[in-house]
């Protein structure tokens, strides 16, 4: 069964995540970078993937790859804030049990 694409885009989530205190920036790994370029070339699913942010409605997950700021607070608290903020942003777009998975790539 096809899942309806969410209205919120990965690009919009990048803006939301990047504005949070303690988040230094989006820091994609090779996987999400290649998926972003692939989506651009194919002109398909561009809204669901952006460097460092992957929305997977069928898998019920959102994956965020970020670099955090050292000294801005405990890592797990910044991560929890990030997850809470993203969950609120996608409320109504995605099921409430959507898993928000965070990958902390660096602390600088």
């Amino acid at each position, binding site marked *: 069964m096809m899942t309806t694409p969410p209205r919120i885009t990965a690009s919009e989530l990048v803006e939301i995540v990047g504005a949070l205190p303690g988040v230094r920036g989006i820091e994609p790994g090779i996987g999400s970078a290649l998926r972003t*370029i692939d989506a651009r070339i194919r002109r398909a699913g561009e809204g669901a993937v952006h460097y460092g942010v992957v929305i997977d409605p069928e898998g019920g997950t959102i994956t965020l790859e970020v670099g*955090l700021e*050292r000294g801005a607070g405990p*890592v*797990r608290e910044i991560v929890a804030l990030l997850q809470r903020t993203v969950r609120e942003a996608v409320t109504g777009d995605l099921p409430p049990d959507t*898993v928000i998975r965070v*990958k902390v790539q*660096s602390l600088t």
Partner: protein
Amino acid sequence: MTDDTRTPTPEPPETPDDPEETLSHEATLRYQEMIRSARREWTQQEERGDASVQLSARAMDLIKASVRAEVRHGRQVEMPPTPEGPYSLSELALRTLIRETVDAVPGVRALRSRVDHAEPHGERLSRGRPVRIACRITASRRCRDLPALAETVRGAVLEACERELDLSLPAVDIHIEDLHDDDTA
């Protein structure tokens, strides 16, 4: 004339007996065929003057940078989830946390650290939660009680893991590898 006429597709090698090795073998053959097919298609497009096959310089730079970043980050290390969901830390980020914690102890400089992990439960290639951290350090020559200094470092690493990551470690090993003069460390 395309390259394909010069380099015909080779015969696939024999399939191994082991089922797991067979799967890997089949994946390798599929990958090789995919590369051959892409090369054929791209060569033909280029011969027709079709530029769509070319990635922009910006996209190429991004791919190269993300490969370098991937190597720098290392694997993802599973952490206890927050109340909001799962998260992981790259090996790079974990090493940064350990190094800065050790360096913050007066009279101590971090040299290297090694982390032993539990079995991973999450994504392929991720590492499980840390179960033991071994820190190699250098201590100030002025220190008169090295065992106490090692205990301070151990406590600092344990406390940082608990505070920052909600991670209770069963073991932190400290090895004083060298002594340094305070002004040269």
